[in-house]
């Protein structure tokens, strides 16, 4: 093929490439995403997203039932319905209380280990086992409350609640499963730690490498299909006109609590030896703060 012909063919390929790229840039997004705040995000959005992710990184005790309770924080029901909704949200929190107490123990053991410079893995594993057992019992304990919740909500409110449960699940899955271990992206776990305890660039490099190794070699992996199945079963059933919580038989609450807490523990076990005593003190305080978390019913 001659020189002119080759150049023209190259132009043609480049032209089509540019068109495809332009078309993709213009295409509307098919669904809501769970990633970092977009260019449409305001500073308030950034803050809300960052706080939500931080919450989901540290609180796993109720699994999908916790996502349901959290969804009531912003459901936006009218004032007449609000007292009933607050009561039901309070009931859900009470039904999750044993699991929440078990999670507090996990966080306290981690905080003590971080402060001391070494996390006691055996103690952490024992605390996570108790958390898993308690979280497993949450679904059965909350059946009646979920039925009452369905009964007081309008179809539009039920659809909105399902959207919110799915949104919480997506964010939880992103920060506890999909986020690359040791990744340095904005809004990621390492970026948050850098901000919390003022890591030096050298520490960031070392911690990033250590986290990649630790999580790659860890035998416990999240089976996100269990969580997916629970969320989808709840969503399909709850959006309907009639609902019986007993029909949602695929509970992933124990699994989510166990996997989330295990990944959280592995993070603190890995970073602790690479921090200075001052940084460990600061980080231990943050963990104690998470351990003292007590949800207040908002029912908005």
């Amino acid at each position, binding site marked *: 093929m001659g020189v002119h012909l080759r150049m023209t063919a190259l132009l043609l390929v480049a032209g089509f490439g540019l068109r495809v790229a332009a078309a993709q840039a213009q295409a509307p997004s098919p669904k*809501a995403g769970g990633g970092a705040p*977009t260019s449409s995000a305001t500073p308030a959005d950034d803050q809300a997203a960052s706080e939500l992710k931080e919450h989901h990184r540290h609180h796993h005790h109720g699994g999908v039932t916790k996502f349901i309770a959290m969804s009531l924080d912003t459901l936006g029901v009218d004032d007449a319905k609000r007292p009933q909704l607050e009561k039901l949200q309070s009931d859900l929190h009470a039904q999750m209380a044993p699991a929440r107490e078990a999670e507090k123990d996990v966080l306290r053991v981690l905080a003590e280990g971080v402060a001391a410079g070494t996390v006691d893995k055996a103690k952490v594993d024992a605390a996570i086992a108790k958390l898993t057992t308690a979280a497993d019992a949450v679904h059965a304990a909350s059946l009646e409350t979920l039925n009452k919740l369905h009964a007081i909500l309008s179809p539009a409110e039920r659809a909105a609640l399902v959207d919110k449960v799915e949104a919480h699940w*997506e964010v939880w899955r992103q920060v506890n499963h999909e986020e690359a271990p040791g990744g340095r992206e904005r809004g990621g776990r390492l970026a948050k730690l850098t901000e919390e305890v003022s890591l030096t660039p050298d520490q960031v490099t070392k911690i990033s490498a250590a986290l990649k190794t630790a999580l790659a070699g860890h035998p416990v992996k999240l089976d996100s299909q269990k969580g997916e199945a629970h969320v989808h079963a709840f969503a399909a059933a709850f959006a309907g006109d009639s609902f019986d919580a007993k029909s949602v038989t695929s509970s992933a609450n124990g699994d989510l609590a166990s996997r989330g807490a295990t990944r959280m523990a592995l993070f603190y076990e890995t970073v602790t030896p690479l921090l200075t005593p001052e940084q460990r003190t600061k980080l231990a305080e943050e963990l104690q703060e998470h351990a003292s978390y007590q949800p207040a019913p908002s029912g908005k």
Partner: protein
Amino acid sequence: MRATNRPLRESEDPMNRSLLTMLTGAVVVSCLASTPVRAGVEIRVFPPSWYIATARPVYYEGHASYWYGDRWHYRDRDRRAWRTYREEPRYLREYRRNREPERHYYEREHERR
């Protein structure tokens, strides 16, 4: 008819010249055709999950609407896709004028206790 007596190069035989002209034409047409597409398409950004999880919606026309990226968005009835109001409905415009958008900040729950 050729203007010079220079011998034809391999790429300049009549067949290749026709092909070259056609390909050039295709590139030009392709570029021209893309211009109106670019001008007519609006980039829509739907509310991401972290936004749905932390923002309070407004109920209008039987669904929860979220103000995000200077537009109101809602899920269609079968919950398969997000939709955007091209024109802001009066009810939602009035709502937005009278009330601040409500968000939930989860870490502040610790401070509220």
